[in-house]
């Protein structure tokens, strides 16, 4: 049985000029210990669909689904208190801008200890010890020193390591990473992806990786969902997706990679669909 099951998820935003559908009838499932990549370009709804699962969308959003189940819990019909026991504990999330994700006014140590005290019920003392342990685990050098640092005193890569430490602090069953390496240099990206994959394997978490980068998909995913303008285009295991992409949009995305260029020109999406686009 899948750890997270989503059926017919639709997210609409109320705007000044009427209702806008960002996610239109998406089905998705992720198994325990599975790495699922959700790939798409801007406006594909890849972030919005996961923010809907987390319940982090603004008031203007209307979320509907036939089913949204996490490990036997119905995420659609639960009280706020029940939701708090799952979101932020069983399911955690990290974001694209690691420096912006942390509060600039508090030390990184305070911020991770807050998670440990509130969610794990640890004492101040125990939280400090566990925080240092987690910092070591995510590869932050000199954790006893860095625990007193403010976010602006750390590099982007280190801040993302802090975010990852906070996200795994509660031993979650599912970690959602929304473009976790997009703001980072490629050598740092490699380190962070290696770290995420290592933690995923060791903790036996499921990992949903939201990305626009086919290279990141190729190096991490077990299974891939391709989204475009709020619709699911394709759902396949990673090897089949790259070897024999079924949907024209997936083929277009792969062809648009400069490393796959065969002639003088790069094919673009319109070469695959004609001018009117998909759907």
């Amino acid at each position, binding site marked *: 049985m899948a750890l997270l099951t989503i059926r017919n998820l639709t997210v609409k935003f109320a705007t000044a000029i009427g209702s806008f559908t960002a996610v239109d009838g998406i089905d998705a499932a992720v198994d325990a*210990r599975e790495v699922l990549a959700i790939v798409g*370009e*801007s406006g594909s709804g890849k972030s919005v669909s996961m923010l809907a699962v987390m319940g982090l969308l603004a008031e203007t959003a209307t979320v509907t689904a036939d089913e949204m189940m996490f490990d036997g819990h119905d995420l659609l019909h639960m009280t706020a208190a029940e939701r708090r026991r799952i979101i932020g504990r069983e399911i955690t999330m990290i974001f694209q801008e690691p420096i912006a994700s942390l509060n600039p006014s508090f030390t990184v140590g305070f911020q991770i200890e807050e998670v440990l005290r509130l969610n794990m019920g640890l004492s101040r003392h125990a939280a400090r010890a566990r925080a240092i342990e987690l910092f070591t685990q995510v590869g932050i050098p000199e954790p006893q020193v860095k625990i007193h640092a403010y976010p602006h005193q750390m590099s982007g890569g280190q801040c993302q390591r802090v975010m990852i430490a906070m996200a795994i602090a509660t031993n979650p069953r599912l970690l959602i990473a929304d473009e976790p390496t997009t703001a980072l*240099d*490629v*050598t*740092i*990206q*490699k380190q962070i*992806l290696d770290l995420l994959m290592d933690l995923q*394997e060791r903790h036996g978490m499921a990992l949903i990786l939201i990305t*626009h*980068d*086919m*290279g*990141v*998909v*190729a*190096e991490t995913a*077990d299974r891939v969902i391709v989204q475009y303008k709020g619709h699911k285009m394709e759902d396949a*295991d*990673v*090897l089949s997706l*790259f*070897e024999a992409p079924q949907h024209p949009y997936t083929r*277009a*995305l*792969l062809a*648009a*990679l*400069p*490393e*796959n*260029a065969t002639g*003088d*020109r*790069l*094919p*673009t*999406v319109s070469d695959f669909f004609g001018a009117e686009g998909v759907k």
Partner: protein
Amino acid sequence: MNYVVEGIDLTQDYHVAGGFLGGAKSVRAVNGASFAVEKGKTLAIVGESGSGKSTLARIVALIDHQSGGTLKIDGQEVDILRKRPDHVLRAKVQMVFQNPYGSLNPRQKVGDVLMEPLLLNSKLPADERRARAEAMLVKVGLTPEHFNRYPHMFSGGQRQRIAIARALMLNPALLVLDEPVSALDLSVQAQVLNLLADLQEEFGLTYVFISHDLSVIRYIANDVMVMHKGEVVEQGSRADIFANPQHPYTRQLFAATPETDIEAIRQRVTRRAALRGGPVL
């Protein structure tokens, strides 16, 4: 040999003011970069944050003055501290920036964006300026109807087309492109790269192309220069650099760049399956 742009031992120091107790220091952002680009060719400068690639771009684009070394445009030595660039020189070198959301004035109509360089650098009459701006919109894949619209009405890719059009209004010889496709979606990136290739061929443009993305560089560059912490660690033809990278940092960069090679994916999937003691699927 006549080069469109030549840098000889270019150096840039930034001075960081100290506090009350002193502590002023200088940071060498670029240390002795030398390069030369022929007409119609593309030099790609690759590096990560802090490598000095954008600092070098600003020197080449005549925005900042170098602290040391010589810059030559079309064989002429250029020293913007001694002599302000005149209209002819300004027209020769133009720049396109990374973020098309930040590089266009939100209160200026697209037509005005395109006509401004002509207004400042030429004596063309108004109707001629307009005609050229409309023609340029078509060249970059937009339409003359876009003339009276504001930047916010355009997508990121379209805005980058406008920024490229603006840079081309004065018939430059050299275009300095600082991460021109990094902010764009993959499919849009492909369109803009195609456009840049077409324009290069049509106008015989020379490009200095700054990027962190090796796959983009492999597609567009003739020559490649790899920078790391202000130093040029390796430079050469694209074929040489990609076939046989010499410097450890270049190799590290290649190793870190994610691959979409089928065999590599197959191996990873197999490794993972073995690690779990069973098939993944």
